[in-house]
């Protein structure tokens, strides 16, 4: 059967590109393997040449896949399932990229793309010795990811999921696909998940996936080193890569946090959600590895743990891929990917790389050199090692708790208990991770004052005492000002201030302006500022939208945290902390609905003094598929954020609720009064209307309006103006409505002889316009972002320094 208008070449081309990418990666890996195993340099070079050629084929194929998929999406070829399920005609151009990687297939593709870019750089930079073994590992991984896109059935088992399947192939049962002209009925796609229609969705995934992909470099080097039994030669080459990876990966993770804070309604930037945890854990291990590697470079210690950390980093990236993409998180996370039935494949992928890595490491463990003499207590390397151990424990705890869905089946069969993740994840994770943070903060600042190998302790103690005294004073002041009393908070406050002061002191008095050496201190200082921001913004975070309406004076009166959603009738000035907030109206700009809320900051002592006025537009999409999707609006100050979002809006009734027989007729003259059940209405004037927002008037139209002044029994008065429109010979009454009173007015007839008009009034259930919203103040949240930026900057300063050193080494 030939289907009308179905474009089949992109699918065929795309599928061919996928297969080419898979096979060329695999064959390239084989060529690199032969090269790496050979001892003869000429044979090595000729195999390398072949391998590079195949790499080029793979690169072209990946670009081909991306181009084809992009073509399908941007041309709205809805006969393809990927375009149909992730995009729609209404989707703005800038989100085409976002729907490109909304699906699993597209995000695998993004990962492959970065692997390809990094691999290309490595071919040029790795050098004769490392190219073959490192690229071998690279191409194996690349082939494994490419296999995720194959979507080919081998007997009964489907390998991977292709982004190029046709809609009719995916939904075989739907009878519509029996028709040759089925495409003429499919005019639109399902569209991008509205939660993801956000510029963060455009920039966050590429950065995060570059972070993921870059962890493959230290893994590939470590594997190559174990394979070629050169345990030390790889360190210098891998150092800049790990710094790059740490910076990008960290940025990617925190972009996710910033996204959550800015446009989701978690009410925070970190919720210990399984998906967040899964990407944080490999980063922690990577950071541990970077530190033990530095210790090794300077002293020869900690080489074994460096291997372990770098191998684990990538393995944990794979594990996180498994967690988020296999559907195993099911009930526990709101933002994992949809299950594509690939969990078997993902487990294979995980085992295929973990087992060889661990076997190689165990076999070589004893052969990896470690100095006879052990580290001195008063040395930097010793405390770096301790710090790395603490990071390991931190990662262990997060992994153990995040993996509950993985092993709950096992526990159930052993003990019969159905375990579930902690009911209060934030408190549970914090109870472990806050002490970790305290230790890391202290270690990361005092280790800088110790020298590698052996330190002068007298000077060390003197400096520590000075810094501690300043820190204690600062802690006391901030704790008093910020009303922090919990022991854990105080410990964290002390530790982060200690870190900030010690690292600044180090930069300004010990490094004395040698900017190039600022990297580590800057990164640590950033972490200190970050933790201070985390502490203050979460400990002193307070909800100002407290609702007292309808609350009985019993038990609930005392539980303030139960009233965090405030009811805001339209035009009513409601108290919110230091503010008065008034919901003044809404407007629609498809697909968003904006709620306009006027905030007035008033004097604490005298609320009639208004210091400042601003309007926030928390918006919501009322999506037919997903209901209310709320987007926060935030007022940013240097010292705090006021964060608001809408939680409930009334469901709008249709005009049709007013039925014909409900209208009551009233024949009145100017100045007469009509009584309704809840108000009285005075006809103030009947006059010709030349301009109105309600209907479009063209030349020749006659439009008469009746000006009505409505006085309800209580509250303020309203105006209404029903119209009588004569357009093209026909008379059309245009109703006016006062929702709050439930009154609908119609100017039905004009009676010139009697000098009267007939006004009909219908009474319906009053419809109150209101929103329910939440407003939270986050004090000093800017410290969080500042800290992250400084921390990432620290990585880049170090990276710059490595390159500079290399340049000097090359030129001398």
């Amino acid at each position, binding site marked *: 059967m030939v289907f009308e208008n179905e474009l089949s070449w992109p699918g065929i081309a795309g599928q061919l590109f996928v297969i080419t990418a898979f096979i060329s990666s695999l064959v390239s890996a084989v060529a690199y393997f032969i090269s790496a195993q050979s001892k003869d340099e000429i044979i090595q070079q000729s195999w390398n040449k072949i391998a590079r050629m195949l790499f080029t084929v793979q690169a072209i194929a990946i670009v081909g896949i991306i181009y084809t998929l992009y073509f399908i999406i941007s041309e709205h070829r809805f006969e393809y399932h990927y375009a149909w399920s992730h995009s729609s005609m209404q989707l703005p151009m800038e989100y085409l990229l976002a729907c490109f990687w909304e699906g699993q297939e597209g995000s695998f593709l993004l990962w492959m793309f970065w692997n390809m870019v990094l691999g290309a750089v490595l071919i040029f930079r790795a050098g004769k010795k490392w190219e073959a073994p490192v690229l071998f590992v690279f191409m194996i991984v690349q082939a494994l990811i490419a296999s995720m896109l194959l979507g080919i059935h081998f007997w009964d088992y489907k390998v991977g999921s292709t982004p190029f399947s046709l809609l009719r192939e995916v939904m075989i049962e739907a009878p519509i696909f029996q028709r040759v002209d089925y495409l003429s009925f499919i005019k639109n796609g399902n569209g991008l998940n509205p939660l993801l229609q956000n510029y963060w969705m455009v920039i966050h995934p590429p950065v995060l996936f570059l972070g993921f992909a870059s962890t493959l470099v230290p893994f590939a080097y470590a594997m190559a080193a174990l394979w070629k039994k050169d345990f030390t030669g790889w360190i210098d080459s891998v150092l800049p890569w790990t710094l790059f990876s740490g910076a990008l990966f960290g940025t990617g993770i925190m972009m996710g946090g910033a996204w959550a804070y800015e446009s989701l309604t978690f009410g925070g930037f970190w919720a210990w959600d399984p998906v967040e945890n899964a990407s944080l854990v490999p980063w922690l291990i990577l950071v541990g590895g970077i530190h033990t590697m530095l210790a090794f470079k300077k002293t020869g210690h900690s080489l074994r743990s460096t291997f372990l950390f770098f191998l684990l980093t990538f393995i944990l990236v794979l594990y996180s891929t498994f967690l988020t993409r296999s559907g195993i998180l099911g009930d526990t996370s*709101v933002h994992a990917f949809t299950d594509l039935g690939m969990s078997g494949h993902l487990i294979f992928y995980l085992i295929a790389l973990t087992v060889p890595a661990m076997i190689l490491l165990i076999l070589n463990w004893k052969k990896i050199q470690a100095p006879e003499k052990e580290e001195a207590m008063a040395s930097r390397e010793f405390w770096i090692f301790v710090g790395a151990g603490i990071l390991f424990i931190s990662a262990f705890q997060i992994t153990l708790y995040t993996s509950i869905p993985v092993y709950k089946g096992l526990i159930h069969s052993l003990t019969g208990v159905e375990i579930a993740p902690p009911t209060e994840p934030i408190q549970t994770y914090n109870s472990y991770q806050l002490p970790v943070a305290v230790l890391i903060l202290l270690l990361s600042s005092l280790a800088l004052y110790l020298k590698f190998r052996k330190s002068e302790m007298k000077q060390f103690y003197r400096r520590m005492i000075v810094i501690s005294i300043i820190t204690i004073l600062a802690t006391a002041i901030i704790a008093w000002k910020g009303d922090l009393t919990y022991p854990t908070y105080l410990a964290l406050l002390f530790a982060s201030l200690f870190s900030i002061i010690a690292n600044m002191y180090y930069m300004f008095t010990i490094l004395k302006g040698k900017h190039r050496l600022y990297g580590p201190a800057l990164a640590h200082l950033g972490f200190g500022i970050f933790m201070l921001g985390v502490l203050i913004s979460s400990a002193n975070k307070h909800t100002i939208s407290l609702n007292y309406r309808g609350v009985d004076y019993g038990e609930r009166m005392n539980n303030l945290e139960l009233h965090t959603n405030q009811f805001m009738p339209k035009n009513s000035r409601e108290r919110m902390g230091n503010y008065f907030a008034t919901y003044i109206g809404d407007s629609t700009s498809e697909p968003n609905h904006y709620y306009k809320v006027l905030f007035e900051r008033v004097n604490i002592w005298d609320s009639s003094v208004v210091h400042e006025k601003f309007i926030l537009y928390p918006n919501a999409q009322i999506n037919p598929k997903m209901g209310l999707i709320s987007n926060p609006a935030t007022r940013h100050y240097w010292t705090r954020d006021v964060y608001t979002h809408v939680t409930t809006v009334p469901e709008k009734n249709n005009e049709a609720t007013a039925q014909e027989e409900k209208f009551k007729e009233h024949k009145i003259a100017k100045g007469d009064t009509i009584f309704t059940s809840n108000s009285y209405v005075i006809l103030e004037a009947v006059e010709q209307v030349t301009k109105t927002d309600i209907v479009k008037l063209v030349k020749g139209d006659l439009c008469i309006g009746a000006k009505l002044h409505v006085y309800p029994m209580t509250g303020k008065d309203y105006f209404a103006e029903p119209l009588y429109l004569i357009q093209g010979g026909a008379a059309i009454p245009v109703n006016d409505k006062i929702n709050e009173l439930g009154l609908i007015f119609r100017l039905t007839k004009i009676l010139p002889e009697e000098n009267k008009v007939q006004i009909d009034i219908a009474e319906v259930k009053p419809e109150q316009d209101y929103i329910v919203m939440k407003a939270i103040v986050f004090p000093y949240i800017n410290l969080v972002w500042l800290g992250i930026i400084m921390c990432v900057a620290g990585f880049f300063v170090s990276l710059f320094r490595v390159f500079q050193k290399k340049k000097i080494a090359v030129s001398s």
Partner: protein
Amino acid sequence: MKKVHIIGLGIIAVAIGIIISTASDYSTYENFSSAKLKTGKDFQIVGTLDTTHALEYDAVKDPNYFSFMLIDKKGESCKVVFHGSKPQDFERSESIVLTGRMKGDYFSASHILMKCPSKYKNDELNVEGYQEVEAVPEES
């Protein structure tokens, strides 16, 4: 014994400590009758909305009070009270995961996770202007 070994043992000891302490951090999936026996502790309950009873939420009266009936996996129906606003589209949820505890005759939920069939997996074919009625013969 080297210091490195001591640290290594220390890490292992802490790790074991964490594993043991997980026992007290885990919550468990329960049903209403088993939760009633263990008051004062938080649980997770998986169930479906009891559609024979109306949802109780009136933002005008109290925007922080939402109550509904849930049928747990054993088929028992129980009143649930959530102090917050009603999640939009709650009626359409396919399954509901509650976190909270029993308080007398109702379950006080501190957290609600809904799973909507169409929320993240929107494989529902909506075809414009197409009906299942055989109006047009295929040959024409």
